[in-house]
């Protein structure tokens, strides 16, 4: 589905308002629409582009979580299986479930349910949006003088810089099987295994990541090392790329974006070659991979020994233990002895 995002076509849209849960007993839960929203071509294309943009950069492949019995996949499957299914009733069920999932921590907002097609196949997109504020300018005349009329708009949603934007796009696998899709949560700092992402992906959508993050992370690591070893000839670049890979794996970010990695850390033609290498191996290069380094932890660890004279020795712990002779002298100084062939000597800052 990811590679077919360019074929997305929007057909119909319905919007429901889901209020934030408060202690106020008289606070309404929902404001449900009884009709689809009228849309024109511009609106449909605007939704199209926002969905593509969001799913293209940070979406994960998801499947319905059959370990629990969540209502959302059932509701979506029920809608997708029949071309005459009622959008109003199905989308109202989704909105009600969203309200029930929420706690007082979660913001209120709008639930947009979008009937669409991807590569010609009937699909459903679910968007959770929050209201945003902005100031609108309009020229006016006051006492014969030109000025700007400023109006605070509090009901805007889904602009180009929208920071809080959750979207899922779903189809029935092979046209009639289980529910599969892409899901993205643009809330800042979102990681697939954090509580925030947990709410949208797991509690509301009733889905789970299709591929275990640790498996995908290991695949990325192994394939990238394979590319560096097989396709990069310059030993200096090999070393730089390897260092960048380790830094990427050890960084605090919760996702890996192969194309961003290529852009930021590889040079020249190596970028495109790297992306093509991963594409050929079947690893998605558009969008993000959820990061979990547990399967490659041993490969990432390095021990660094810094000497007072400025010499530093960096090695994997097992190499340091097994192949570097370490002696502590009587005066407390350490003696390290390394015997091996030299791969590379270079200057660096």
């Amino acid at each position, binding site marked *: 589905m990811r590679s077919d995002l360019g074929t997305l076509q929007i057909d119909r849209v319905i919007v429901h308002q889901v209020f934030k849960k408060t202690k106020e007993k008289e606070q309404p839960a929902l404001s449900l629409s009884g009709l689809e929203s009228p849309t024109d071509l511009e609106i449909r294309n605007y939704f199209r582009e926002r969905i593509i943009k969001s799913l293209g950069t940070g979406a994960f492949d998801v499947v319905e979580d059959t370990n629990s019995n969540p209502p959302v996949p059932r509701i979506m499957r029920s809608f997708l299986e029949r071309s005459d299914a009622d959008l109003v009733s199905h989308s109202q069920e989704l909105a009600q479930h969203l309200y029930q999932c929420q706690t007082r921590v979660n913001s209120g907002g709008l639930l947009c349910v979008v009937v669409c097609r991807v590569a010609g196949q009937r699909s459903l997109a679910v968007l959770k949006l929050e209201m945003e504020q902005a100031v609108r300018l309009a020229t006016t005349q006051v006492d014969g003088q030109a000025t700007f009329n400023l109006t605070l708009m509090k009901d805007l949603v889904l602009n180009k810089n929208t920071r809080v934007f959750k979207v899922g796009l779903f189809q029935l696998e092979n046209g009639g099987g289980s529910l599969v899709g892409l899901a993205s949560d643009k809330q800042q700092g979102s990681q697939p295994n954090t509580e925030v992402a947990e709410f949208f992906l797991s509690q509301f959508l009733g889905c789970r990541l299709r591929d275990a993050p640790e498996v995908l992370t290991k695949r990325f690591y192994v394939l990238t090392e394979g590319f560096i070893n097989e396709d990069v000839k310059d030993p200096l670049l090999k070393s730089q790329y390897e260092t960048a890979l380790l830094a990427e794996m050890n960084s605090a970010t919760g996702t890996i974006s192969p*194309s961003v990695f290529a852009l930021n850390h590889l040079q020249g033609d190596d970028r495109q070659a790297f992306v093509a290498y991963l594409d050929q191996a079947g690893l998605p290069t558009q969008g993000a991979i959820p990061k979990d380094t547990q399967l490659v932890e041993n490969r990432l660890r390095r021990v660094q020994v810094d000497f007072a004279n400025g010499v530093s020795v960096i090695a994997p712990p097992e190499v340091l233990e097994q192949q570097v002779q370490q002696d502590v002298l009587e005066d407390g100084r350490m003696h390290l002895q390394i015997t091996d062939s030299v791969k590379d000597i270079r200057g660096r800052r």
Partner: protein
Amino acid sequence: MTLDELRDRWIEERPKYNKFVDLIRAIIAHECRTAGIYCYTDGRAKEVASLVKKQIKNRYEDPWERMGDKAGVRVIAVFRDTVPAIEEIVARRFEATGPDRKAEKLGVEKLGYQGIHYQVRLREEDLTGEAEVFRDLEAELQIHTKAQNLWSDVSHQLAYKVPVETPQEAARLIHLVNALVEVIDKEFVDARTMIRSIPGYEQHKMLDELEARYYPLASHDFDRELSLEIIQGLKGLFQPGEINGIGAIIDQFVDKRRERLRQLYEIYRDDPRGPELLFQPEALLILERLEKDQFGLLRAWQQKWPMELLDHLATAWGYSLPELS
């Protein structure tokens, strides 16, 4: 082999030879287009009457083997200086015997036919599937310029097809025209060199190629100045040889993505807020580079134009740009 046996065999096998000729022409046309070489191809399996008359005239002992021009292909180059490149293609894409350069036999004082002839067969790696039936076939391949071809055809009609011997004066006129042929070829190459040195020629040429692929997809008018500016900024993403063959590169992209392009243009056809670059011919160039060299495109774009323009087009195409640091 008797004359009747020869005739009967040729009547039976001639259709296969015609298909063989078509295949050779298709290979040459594709290769030349990819290399940005303007040329035409012509070809046929010899007419039955022509084959029989040739045997009557020459009385070959083994006419089937001796007549290497049962199938003939002519490659007609527009410009004389592209002939070496065409010869390289022939040598690379076929099992070729030759060349037989007719001009070398003339020396410097004589005028006459100057074609370059090869005998060609298909390479082993091309003799697969339906082409297997062409294994034992060969064709005569001639390379002419357009001017040489004109002279060759007309002089052949005048000197060989008329039932009487050509008078000396007429023969001299025919040869004088041949001198003009050499002048025509040289002057056209010189003129083309001058035109190509005009600033902006390459961009205009590329725009012509893009326009030809754009209008079958969309009928919106476009901003020509913007097109030339963007083409100028992005042409560095291509090798010089690729710039000459940009039409073939875009054709390959359009062929691969035809349905998706058709759908994209249909979605945005009446949308006034659609991607600004979509209804410009260079959109095809940008989308092709997005798939083939996204990082080169990003770097080239970032230096010159707002990223929002590229981002809007890329998003509409279903592509997410990595954020530049």
